[in-house]
């Protein structure tokens, strides 16, 4: 959001208000006292399990493992942590040398423990329990061990429903943030790829990973992204949409300024271009910032198909966007203000079709537009199979009935459905939503002032587009501040071996992307 200058930057404690009511006392040595301290926080939760056991040796040392059910990998805990501790650990040097050697033993024996940390005070202890980390408490040792063995069920990686491609990879992100990071890491083995993690939301403490390539991305942009994310002083976030709305530049604009996608193979090229990718835990949609307008009209398979075909398809998308926005409006303007513009016989057939229809053109077009939008919404809300049939059936039957009942002329139904199809031909779903909205004001302007109103609307939208910025980068970049070298990849996509430089519109450090592969056949 537009960074409103805050009076005072948010202090650390202001953000962790929820932790405040947990006293920051030092942990006592005796196990029973520790359990006493922990009881008020964990006894109410049915899914927090406390597993007490004895360490092998005489006299036996009592210990307790505290973990959340189904969040950690129960096998690893039993086989690799509890079993070795219970059975074969020599007790004598345990007590004497304190918890230091204990970590050594656990480290050696429990091979899957990824991170082991010592916790000294109660508030961070309670917080780590609820973060889903296993706690080992020993009688007689004041330190407590926290072992991060995440597990639990999660969706397996499969094709993202919204973004199908013929030739691209079939892998899509899932809800687990570390799996998502792994998906990207597997595709981008560059040592400069930096993954930074912050926690967002005071209560949900969702992990947000910020990925960028250190020697490519512009440090100012990275810093701006981090600042905006840190400024999010919110109770909890459940989807990346929250983050998007907080970090975009102009929330009141119709056009999306943050690119979101479920496909890792779409985000890796953006990382290579110097953009910052934000992955939020529990949501498969990752964000890429800064986003340009032309980006929403590009699809991943443009780069997998051969040049001519992909350029052709990309040009068709631009035509689709222009048609989706302006076709109904120009139909209204043509038919009610400047009919002489049409060729003569088309004009006569139009007015013959409209003789029987009682409504003026704009009412007719608006009715059809609203009906078709509602049909689409109905189609979305119903389960998959029924949704499809509802869409198709109502489209045909409604249209036919409207024509026979002479409520709408056949031409207006054709025009509205063509523009709806064009809207859904656009690859990025956020642009589809904004196009559906833009169409209405354009129709209103066309209805009141004809082609003049239409061109006035076009100028206002063009100015709005040109004035937008995404993270300081001009939003309409390769067109408004015309960057000729970027035009290679905007309307058409030149040959892969010709794209030697990174796009200029995204500020980046080393612009050289690839040597000139293959000798220039001059």
């Amino acid at each position, binding site marked *: 959001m537009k960074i409103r200058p805050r009076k005072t930057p948010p202090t650390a404690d202001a953000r962790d208000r929820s932790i405040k009511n947990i006293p920051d006392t030092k942990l006592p040595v005796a196990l029973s006292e520790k359990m006493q301290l922990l009881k008020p926080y964990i006894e109410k939760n049915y899914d927090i399990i406390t597993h007490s056991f004895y360490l092998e040796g005489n006299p036996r040392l009592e210990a307790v493992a505290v973990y959340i059910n189904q969040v950690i990998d129960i096998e690893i805990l039993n086989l690799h942590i509890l079993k070795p501790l219970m059975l074969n650990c020599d007790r004598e040097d345990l007590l004497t040398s304190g918890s230091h050697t204990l970590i050594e033993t656990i480290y050696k024996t429990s091979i899957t423990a990824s991170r082991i940390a010592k916790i000294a005070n109660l508030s961070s202890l309670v917080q780590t329990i609820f973060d889903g980390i296993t706690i080992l408490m020993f009688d007689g040792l004041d330190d407590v061990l926290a072992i991060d063995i995440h597990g639990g069920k999660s969706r397996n990686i499969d094709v993202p429903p919204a973004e199908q491609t013929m030739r691209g990879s079939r892998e899509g992100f899932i809800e687990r943030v570390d799996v998502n990071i792994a998906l990207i890491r597997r595709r981008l083995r560059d040592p400069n790829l930096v993954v930074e993690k912050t926690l967002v939301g005071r209560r949900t403490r969702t992990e947000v990973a910020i990925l960028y390539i250190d020697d490519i991305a512009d440090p100012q942009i990275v810093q701006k992204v981090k600042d905006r994310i840190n400024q999010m002083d919110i109770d909890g976030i459940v989807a990346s949409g929250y983050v998007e709305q907080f970090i975009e530049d102009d929330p009141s604009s119709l056009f999306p300024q943050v690119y979101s996608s479920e496909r890792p193979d779409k985000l890796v090229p953006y990382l290579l271009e110097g953009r910052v990718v934000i992955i939020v835990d529990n949501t498969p949609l990752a964000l890429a910032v800064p986003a340009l307008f032309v980006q929403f009209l590009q699809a991943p398979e443009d780069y997998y198909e051969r040049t001519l075909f992909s350029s052709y398809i990309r040009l068709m998308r631009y035509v689709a966007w222009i048609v989706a926005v302006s076709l109904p409006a120009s139909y209204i303007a043509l038919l009610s*203000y400047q009919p002489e*513009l049409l060729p003569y016989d088309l004009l006569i057939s139009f007015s013959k079709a409209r003789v029987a229809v009682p409504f003026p053109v704009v009412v007719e077009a608006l009715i059809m537009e609203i009906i078709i939008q509602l049909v689409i919404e109905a189609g979305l809300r119903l389960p998959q199979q029924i949704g499809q049939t509802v869409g198709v059936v109502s489209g045909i039957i409604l249209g036919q009935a409207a024509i026979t009942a002479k409520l709408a002329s056949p031409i207006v139904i054709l025009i509205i459905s063509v523009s709806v199809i064009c809207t859904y031909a656009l690859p990025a779903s956020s642009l589809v939503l904004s196009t559906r909205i833009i169409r209405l004001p354009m129709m209103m302007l066309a209805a009141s002032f*004809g*082609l*003049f109103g239409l061109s*006035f609307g076009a100028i206002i939208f*063009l100015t709005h587009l*040109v*004035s937008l910025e995404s993270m300081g980068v001009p939003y309409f970049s390769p067109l*408004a501040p015309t960057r000729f070298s970027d035009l290679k990849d905007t309307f058409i996509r030149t040959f892969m071996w010709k794209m030697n430089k990174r796009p200029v519109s995204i500020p980046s450090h080393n612009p050289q992307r690839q040597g000139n592969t293959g000798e220039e056949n001059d």
Partner: protein
Amino acid sequence: MKDKTSSTITSKQLIFVIIGSQIGAGIFALPRMVSGKAGEDAWISVVLGAIIPFLSVFLIERLGRRMPQMGFTQMALGLFGKNVGSVLIILFIAYVLLFESLVVRSFAEIANLYLLPKTPLAVVLLFITISIVYIGSKGVRVLARLNEILFYFGVLLLFILIIPVGQADYTNILPVGEAGLKGIARGALTTAYSFAGTEVLLVFYSLVNKQEEVLKAGLIAVCITTLLYLAMVITCLLVFGVNNLQRILWPGLMLLKVSQVPVLERLEFIFLVFWMGMGARPAVNMGFAASLSLSQLLKIDEKKYNTYALMFIALAIYILALLPHNLLSVFKLWDYAGYGFLIIGLGYPLLYHLAAFMRGGKMLV
């Protein structure tokens, strides 16, 4: 004085701003006005007419180089003292209001004549004023970007005008040189009037981040405008011939009505729809320049209050545009506005140079 990064434009964008403030609705009437004076050799006088804007660009750039880091208003106040300087600035703003109200009025007349015959003129003018305020309120960087994309769009549109050259008759521009030096000179003067807009450089000079490239940018801008004017005048001469040109109010638009394109029967409606952006462009640029110098004059903080100054300027342009009786009186006023351009475009820089020379470099701030 001004934080460099946020409100500056590159020299490449300056080219488009200058072209943007020159080419407006006047380009359509230019062939009639020039061929009225210079007959068949109208195209020679167009080339000659370009000398005045070249001179003006050169003088203004020299001025800026002599006093870098100084805005147009600061320069005036510095050189001429408080009240004389502000009088000069107010004169400049008044000139901009008068000139732009003519530009806006003629564009509104075209839109009214072709697209909305029954809509009262005041409504069409209101649309243009709203677009002036909206575009101006976004700041100079956005203005420059918009000018850039509208320029490429405009050049594309002007290529459409060349379609009817197929029906041209080359004898219309022969014999060359028969209009005599006096005719060509008078024609050159009328062309110079339609170059009005170069004086936007006075205000935008200080907004360019790399000051040394301004001269090159200015000269390129005037060259491009001259080429576009030349193409328009020659096409109209070839297609209509001098005798007919005097009869047509907007020969540029009539060009499109001459040939029959198979599918789109009427090219000029489509052309006018896309020309909407370009029609109001000189008013937008000059209006912004005037509001900038007004807010600097009143010493109000540009960032916040520039929009109000712009609203005031746009309102003034709106009211002034409603005054002329009808289009014929607008054309009569066009010549007076032309004199205004000569005074502002050439007179001001000369006056400043003189004052700077007399001041010998020390300012009274």
